[in-house]
């Protein structure tokens, strides 16, 4: 499935500054693996050492937090938008 991944500012350096990139996969896990293949290092701050999602970085498929879907096994379909959202605290 071809999805669009929206990258937060802190991850754009791995993708030459791009804010939106394309990726392929049937699940979020596959999409992240595909991202890592094209942009090595990009998932280092998204995935914890145990392979799960960090609790201070949220991932959304369209407008839903994947924690309430299938987490890393959330299925994605063509045209979906995957948004990676870290906690920020500036003010």
């Amino acid at each position: 499935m071809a999805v669009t991944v929206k990258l937060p500012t802190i991850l754009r350096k791995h993708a030459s500054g791009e804010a939106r990139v394309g990726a392929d996969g049937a699940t979020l896990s596959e999409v992240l693996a595909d991202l890592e293949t094209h942009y090595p290092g990009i998932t280092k701050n998204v995935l914890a050492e145990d392979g799960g999602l960090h609790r201070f970085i949220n991932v959304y498929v369209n407008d839903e937090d994947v924690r309430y879907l299938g987490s890393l096994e959330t299925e994605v379909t063509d045209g979906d938008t995957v948004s990676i959202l870290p906690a920020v605290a500036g003010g």
Partner: protein
Amino acid sequence: MTGDVAPKRFTEDQVQRYSRHIILPNIGGAGQRKLLDAKVLVIGAGGLGSPILLYLAAAGIGTIGIVDFDVVDTSNLQRQILHTDADVDRPKVASALDHLRALNPTIELIGHDTLLSSDNVMAIMEPYDVVIDGTDNFPVRYLVNDATQFLGKPLVYGSIYQFEGQATVFMPGQEAPCYRCLFPSPPPPGTVPSCAEGGVFGVLPGVIGAIQATEAIKIITGEGDSLVGRLLLYDALHMDFQEVKIRWDADCPVCGKEPTITELIDYELFCGIPAQS
């Protein structure tokens, strides 16, 4: 904020000052009266705090509390538009009080020139109706979230980093999410760069702060659709607005069905750089 009591009459100044609200649908005299009767606490008089405070004072919020322990620095003036060059080295609260008084001398302004901690936040917050988070660090954001949940106060949240901003409203007690439903605990040290390290687009807090002021005014007047349950995401560089859902987490340690956090926590300020933006 009931409609049954005969409304107090506006003064001549108020009729003039708030005329554009008084004739506005959805606000009107009744809405303006609610604003004048409201007490709002703004935590932070910096990037977000500046537009928040200016717009709340302009709108005639009757009592505005301002919390900040910092002093004005030249590097603040790129975005902290409440302060001026002449205020450099002055406490932000003192500067804020002066400028807000100049804008609207008819409302009550209360300065809290102090660092918030578990020792003082409940007492400071208790008299207010709505709390707005304009802070610049995770420890205080979690403290403010937890305190507003314990006290039952709506919290208008906003945060920024470089070119991106986030905003939402956390409404306590209605199976509505709190900050910990969104991000259960602070990031470990070293995982998130600070504003001082990453830089910040000056006009960015202007947009997010104005959105926060908007939401506070809507909570008070009861008008419109609030951001409860919705996280607004703004990317200034691409002029992109996006919304994602925030769900109430029944397992949330603060607002869930069986809370495990029942006391305030002072997370260490871990960034190593003093909390100045």
